[in-house]
């Protein structure tokens, strides 16, 4: 579809001009990232779906009231709304961490990959389950950066601005998040995935020739 190539800003403009189909495309484009961000914070599928709905409703209110001004960053803006809602919900304790890790339920269905074999799909789900659990074990600041960068589509500078730290601090937190994930993956060999061989950067001092 030609309109799938439109930028988020163009879709927002079309939506504000009355084209509901433009909003459907924005929803399709951003729901998975946003939902994943929320889910990895609140750890409950039902709560995450409610919060996803709340985030988009909030976005609709802002858009249709003419108060939207994100300089073409719809995805990161939506993620910040979702992230804040999820953090609030988590702090209020309105979550029951019953996230299924055994491959049952709608999460497992959403991970189905029709083009791969059953063994591959099982291995992928096992890796994802383990990875999901390990992300929960990260220190909050590291987890926050990792979620915002990978699922919220925020740049490191945007994360730094949103969290009130320097970009070097944001980068440092990401660095240690990746180191921690690697260590945790290595600690539990049955779940270890060779695709997550995060490099230990402690001694990384690469010499290069500067022109």
């Amino acid at each position, binding site marked *: 579809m030609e309109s799938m190539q439109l930028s988020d800003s163009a879709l927002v403009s079309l939506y504000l001009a009355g084209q509901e189909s433009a*909003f459907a495309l924005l929803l399709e484009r951003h*729901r998975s990232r946003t939902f994943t961000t929320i889910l990895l914070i609140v750890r409950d599928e039902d709560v995450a*779906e409610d919060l996803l709905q709340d985030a988009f*409703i909030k976005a609709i209110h802002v858009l249709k009231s003419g108060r939207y001004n994100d300089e073409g960053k719809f995805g990161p803006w939506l993620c910040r709304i979702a992230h804040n809602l999820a953090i609030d919900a988590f702090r209020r304790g309105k979550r029951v961490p019953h996230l299924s890790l055994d491959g049952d339920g709608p999460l497992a269905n959403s991970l189905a990959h029709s083009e791969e074999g059953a063994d591959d799909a099982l291995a992928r789900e096992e890796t994802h389950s383990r990875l999901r659990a390990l992300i929960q074990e990260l220190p909050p600041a590291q987890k926050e950066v990792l979620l915002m960068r990978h699922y919220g589509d925020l740049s490191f500078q945007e994360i730094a601005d949103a969290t009130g730290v320097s970009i070097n601090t944001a980068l440092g937190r990401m660095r240690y998040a990746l180191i921690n994930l690697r260590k945790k993956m290595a600690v539990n060999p049955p779940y270890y*995935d060779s695709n997550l061989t995060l490099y230990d950067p402690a001694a*990384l001092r*690469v*010499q290069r*020739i500067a022109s």
Partner: protein
Amino acid sequence: MIQTLPYTTLLRYVYNELPASALPEIEEALQHDPELATACADLLLAQRTLNALRYEPRPAVSARILEYSRTFPASR
């Protein structure tokens, strides 16, 4: 002149957040330094694995959001 490449620079390179002017120098370093190339490859694999961790809400949730958007002006 010998310089060092901080890990944070490599991180920004892998996440495509460096200015274009900085890329040739880094890519030249990648070609000549196996240790750096390995670190970069590992980061890219980790990035791919993390990005693959995606979930979808049930279709009914999307339908409710779209319905809300469609009826929003009428309810205000």
